[in-house]
Structures are given as structure tokens and as C-alpha cells.
């Protein structure tokens, strides 16, 4: 069953068609990478999926329901989590509280259980010993990891990540790949990623977007072999 589907989803800015009639489907449990050159419309597409921006036309279906008309918070409530391409954490709150905000929303737990869950999640991204630091005082890479932790804390059905490894160190990227493999199977993942190494190692399927349209779709091997993709994207890398 497809957890997420879009039909003819479109969004333009002025005259520019950032997302142009995109039909897209991710089956439950899959790790899907969304790649494409800068400006291809990847961020706009996922933002329209989770309701952060409004689509002009087309529909979004999640977990068997048409969510096209739901506001963002209702979509998130249904089991989506979203990490921003441009780091967006609560700079003045502690790392712990950043994650706790997500955990509290999904689970009416006691304080102690929430604490435990938050620490578990922070530990998973290697930030456990920084839980009391203000998010704004964390290094850029750590803020990126905190974003991921905020998503994890919500235990989403669909985890949308917009360029999560941007700004991470080598070792952190290794950890990230490990994390995705752990999540795979339980959590459906939609990953926008520039790092081809990460894509090839984690994604089961890849969708290539170019100028707002789906250019190709397939397994990593298929996409790598696709000449259109090479022309539009990989070749230029």
C-alpha cells in the first residue's frame, strides 16, 4: 500500500512552475530519495506535501486519506514529520526541550517517560550529553542533528527530511546512514539529498526531479544508468 501519493501536484511562483504536475507514490516502509539539481523543486514539492506551502492544484493522499485540504498541523498530526532545509530549531530553548515539544504532542506521557524518550532520541543522534545546551549554542552540524532528533521524537509514519546531511561532518554522515538503515522498514522515509553516496547507500528507490517534473524513477542502479539523469544531474556533479 502506498503511504503517500500525490496526483498532478503543482505549485508555481510567479511565472515559474516550481512543481509541475507531479504524480508520485511511496509505498509504506520504503526509503525514497528525492534528488535533482538545485532549483528542481524538491523543497517546494515536500513543502506542499506536508502543507507548509499551499499547492495550486492536484491532490495529496496520506495513509489512505485525501489530505489536500488539511492545514499543516493536521497533516503532521496524522503521522508526518518534517525537517527544514534551512535549520529551524528553537534557538533559545534547550536541545532537550526542542525534542520534548515533538514527543509531548504525540504522547500524553508523564514527565519522566517524556524525559526518557527525549534522551533516547538525543542519544540516537549523538546529542545526549548536550541536552541542556541552548539549541542556538550548538554547532551548525549539531543543530542539523537536533532537527533530525525532533523528527524522530514524533515517531512519524512518514519522515520527510530536506537535505539533512548538509553541513554534517564525515563521521556524522556515517552515523546518519546508520540511523536511516535502522529506521528503514518501520518508518517510511522521504529524503531529499545531495550527497550521492548517502543516496546510493540508503535509498531503495530514487525519484529524480528536474524543472518541477519527474525525470526518472527507479532503483539506485537504474537511476545511475539512466542517460537522461546523467545529462541533467549526475554528469554535472
Amino acid at each position, binding site marked *: 500500500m502506498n503511504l503517500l501519493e500525490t496526483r498532478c501536484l503543482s505549485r508555481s511562483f510567479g511565472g515559474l512552475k516550481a512543481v509541475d504536475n507531479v504524480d508520485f507514490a511511496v509505498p509504506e516502509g520504503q526509503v525514497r530519495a528525492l534528488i535533482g539539481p538545485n532549483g528542481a523543486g524538491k523543497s517546494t514539492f515536500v513543502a506542499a506535501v*506536508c502543507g*507548509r506551502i499551499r499547492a495550486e492544484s492536484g491532490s495529496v493522499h496520506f495513509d489512505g486519506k485525501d489530505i489536500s485540504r488539511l492545514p*499543516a*498541523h*493536521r497533516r*503532521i*498530526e496524522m503521522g508526518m514529520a*518534517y525537517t*527544514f532545509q534551512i535549520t*529551524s*530549531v*528553537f*534557538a*533559545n*530553548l534547550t536541545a532537550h*526541550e526542542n525534542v*520534548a*515539544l*515533538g514527543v*509531548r*504532542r*504525540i504522547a500524553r506521557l508523564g514527565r519522566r517517560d517524556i524525559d526518557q524518550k527525549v534522551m533516547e532520541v538525543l542519544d540516537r543522534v549523538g546529542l545526549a550529553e548536550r541536552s541542556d545546551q541552548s539549541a542556538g549554542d550548538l554547532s551548525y552540524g549539531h543543530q542539523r542533528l537536533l532537527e533530525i532528533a*525532533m523528527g524522530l521524537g*514524533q515517531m512519524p509514519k512518514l519522515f520527510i527530511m530536506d537535505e539533512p546531511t548538509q553541513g554534517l561532518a564525515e563521521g556524522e554522515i556515517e552515523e546518519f546512514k546508520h540511523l536511516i538503515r535502522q529506521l528503514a522498514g518501520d518508518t517510511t522515509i522521504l529524503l531529499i539529498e545531495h550527497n550521492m553516496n548517502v543516496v546510493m547507500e540508503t535509498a531503495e528507490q530514487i525519484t529524480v526531479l528536474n524543472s518541477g517534473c519527474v525525470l526518472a524513477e527507479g532503483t539506485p542502479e537504474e537511476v545511475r544508468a539512466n542517460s537522461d539523469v546523467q545529462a541533467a544531474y549526475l554528469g554535472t556533479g
Partner: protein
Amino acid sequence: MTGNLKENSLHVGVLVILAALFFVVSDYHDGNLARIMVLAVYAVGYNLLFGYSGLLSLGHALFFAAGMYGLGLSMNLLGFAALPALLVGIVFSAGVSAIVGFLALRTSGVAFMIVTLMFAQAGFLTALHFGEYTRGDEGFVIQQASRMIAGIDLSAHANRYFAAFGFFALSYVAVAILVRSPFGRCLVAIRENEERARMLGYDVWMHKYLAVIASGTISGLSGAAYALLFGYAGATFASVQYSILPLLWVLLGGAGTTIGPLIGTAFAFYLIDLASEITTAHLLVVGLTIVLLTLFAPQGISGELRRRGLKWLP
């Protein structure tokens, strides 16, 4: 956990000190303190919206006056007893904030400030327009004989002090609990980064709306308590000045801290009191102090304490 213990000790400590002060200081200061505590309820309500939710309203006098007139008019015109009149004041201010919040929250930022200001001006003009009942600026007195609850004369010195204390303790503790609850944490998150809070799945509008209603109702409680304890209601309390004052108190005391509203209200009260003893240009002294505070302690008094080591200060 230890942070929690410290917070609770602080709250209990503040209340114990306030109760004890009655027996320590002179009658003159008792009277001042009663007034400060009632007005601090207003500041506590304002702080919930401004300090914790990040919404700057310039129209809270409307909610304060709604409570004040709700109580005053239902006593004087309808002959209500004090307790039901108090309830009328609270319910009326809750209703007014529900309506104003619903409309004003279509805007944000500067527009929100202006819309709330306009609503409050409309309320002020309404109070003047129905001068036949409200006696406009001049106001009206609520007879001492009717200011009784359960046989206790609330105009008597000690009774008034402890009634004021009760109102303050109630709102202070309620807000302290609220801001520590998941709801309150979400308000802070909205203040810090609204878009992020939304994308964590929170209904930002609804949280803000409930915050406006809670804040407006607490402000109304303050207005009703003021009329009840001091026996007077007048349109001055609906004027723009009374929308600015709670902002001032909260800024002075420390926005987004539980103790800030009390500190700020007391500080401003005594500042004006002292300055007007020394000079007729007391507003100049007040203005200067505010400028100095915003320059050197932009987080307010308790915000400054928090910055200088008391990091746990709630």
C-alpha cells in the same frame, strides 16, 4: 527535578512573604501592597500573552474594564451581590476576549497591536457613550455596604489585603502551572519560532486563541477585583493608558518570567510614589528609569537575575 523544586520553593516563598508583609509594614504600605497585588494580577494576565506567547496587545484595558464594569454595573444597576457580580465580571471579560481574540488573531505583529488598540478604544468610547450608566470618566462608587462576600467586609483594611492576596495567589499559581504544562510549553515554542511549532504539529492559531482568552480573563479578574476591593469603577481604566501600563510593568519586571509581573508592578508603583514625593515632574523620573532599564536590563529585573546566574528562574 531539582529545577522544579527550586521553582516551587520560589512560588511558595513569594506568597509567604506577601502574606507576612501585612504584619510587618505600616498601614500605608499595606494599602499600597493591596493595590499592587490586584494590579499585579493584571500584569500576570498580560504576561501570559506577551511574555509567554509573544503576542503584543495594546488593548488589554478593554479586558480589565470588562471585568471592572461587569462587576460594578451588575452590582449598582442590577443589585447583584458581590460574589455573583464577580462571576459576571469574569465571564464578561472572558466573552469579550473570546470575540476580540477571534477577530484580532486574523492579524499578527504590528497589525495585531493596532487591531487590539482599536477594539480597546471602541470599548473606551462605549463606556463614555453610556455615561448615563457608567458616569464616564468620573466613574461611580460601589457602596461599601455591598462589598461583602460571605459576611466578610472587603473594604476593611486586613480583609482587603488578604482578598487582594488571594486574587494574586490564584492567578500567580495558575499561570505558573499553566506555563509549565504542555500547553504553556507550546506557547513558548510559538513565541520562539511559530513556523517550527506549526510543523511540529501544533495548532498555532488555537493555542494563541486560548492564550488570548486566558490572558483577557485574568485581566478581567483583576479589573473586577479592583472595583470590588477599592469600590470604584471609571472609564479611565478603559483608556489607552491602562493598556500600556501592564506592558510597562511586564517589561520592567521581566517578560516571560512568573515573578516578573509582581516585581514590575511593585517597582513602577513605588517609583511613581517616590518620584512624586521628590518632584512634580515625577513622570520624567519614571520615563528616565524606564529608559535606563531598557538600556541596561532589557530582559527586565527578573530577566536580568536569570541572566546573572539564576538560570532556573521560571
